[in-house]
Every structure is written in C-alpha cells, then in structure tokens.
C-alpha cells in the first residue's frame, strides 16, 4: 500500500522567506510525527499529533516553527522567516497508535530544505 509521502522533496528558500512542508501519512494512522535531521546526525523530534490534537511540541526550536493537522490526516510544518540554521531534512512519520504499547513509526522520504 501507499507509504508516507512528503512534498516538496526539495526546497530552496532565501533567508527570511516563509516555507510550508506537507506530509500525507499512511491512511488510518492516528499518530503523526515531525523530525529534523541534520547532515550526519540522527533525526531529532520536533512535534507530535494524535489525530488533530498536537500533544507535544517540545522539540520545535523556536516560535518561527508551527505545525498543524486540522482534519487529523494531512499535516503541514510551517517555518516563518527562515534562517540558515533551518537548513536540514525534515522527516514526517506516522504510526497506527501510541498508547501503553509501542507502535513502529513509518517515515516519509523527507523534504530537504536549503536556506541561502
């Protein structure tokens, strides 16, 4: 079946521009996560949704980062007034559920953001 999809795959932004990154999770997956991956590093958590509720946004690096999932399916990560340090790969992952037991997260291909 279809996996997690992300668009655009590549984005070049000039410093100060706003960008919006889209994530389409696996159909029926309740939980959705955003991660940031710098070159040569492991992914780092940004934020987490359960359906449309944003339950954890502790990883967002500044108030320039904003995420939403208004209908509990597609999610958008928005970065305002981009800075060079925002350059990274942004990964979206979805999982069936997150409760007492643990469910594996399935990742999309990522969006590579380059801020010039």
């Amino acid at each position, binding site marked *: 079946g279809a996996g997690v999809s992300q668009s655009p795959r590549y984005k070049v932004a000039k410093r100060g521009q706003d960008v919006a990154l889209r994530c389409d999770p696996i159909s029926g997956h309740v939980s959705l996560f955003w*991660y940031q991956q710098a070159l040569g590093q*492991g992914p780092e*958590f940004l934020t987490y949704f359960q359906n449309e509720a944003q339950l954890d946004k502790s990883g967002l690096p500044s108030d320039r980062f904003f995420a939403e999932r208004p209908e509990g399916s597609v999610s958008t990560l928005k970065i305002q007034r981009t800075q060079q340090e925002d350059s990274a790969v942004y990964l979206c992952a979805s999982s069936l559920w997150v409760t007492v037991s643990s469910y594996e997260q399935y*990742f999309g*291909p*990522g969006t590579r953001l380059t801020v010039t």
Partner: protein
Amino acid sequence: EDQVTQSPEALRLQEGESSSLNCSYTVSGLRGLFWYRQDPGKGPEFLFTLYSAGEEKEKERLKATLTKKESFLHITAPKPEDSATYLCAVQGGQYGGSQGNLIFGKGTKLSVKP
C-alpha cells in the same frame, strides 16, 4: 535525560564478513527499541522493534538483540546491498504519557565491499 549512543560511527566490511553494531541507551521506562535502515536521500526504513531484555528478532541476514542497557544488530555474511546507515532509536515515557517520539542515535554507516 534519555540518550542513545551508537558505535562504531562507520564500519567497513568485506562481503561475507560478519559483524555487529552496538546501540547503548539510557531511558526512563523503555517502551520500545527500534532499528531503522537509511539509504542516502531517503527516509529511515523500519527493520525491528524490541520490547524487553532477552528478546531477539531476525530478518534475512540481520538479527537484533536487546539487553537492559544495549542492543546489538548482528549482520551475518553481509552483501554490498546491505550498505546503508543503521539507526537505533528508543521510545520512552510513562504509561498514559504523550511521549511517543523516538530518540535516535547518530547511526552507524556500514559499507560492504564485494
């Protein structure tokens, strides 16, 4: 603080030369330990979940094991197509908590030469 450390950072093997990758972790209330494979320019691909010490899982040439402090990914008779970065991650948090996020190590970059 929850933490994951992977070693070695990079590993070069000859085809058929078996080896192991290490993942050491500290986490409050382990809910799961995950292994992923990541190819250049792609997102992490799920391999295994381990839940409790003593658990083992296998898939083709890969076998993952778990103790209370670390996990190993054993690669038996690797092939060039096994070349990738292998990521280890833990999911912690107390029962009923919202902490669903994974905490990743930096990965081990594996190269298998023919």
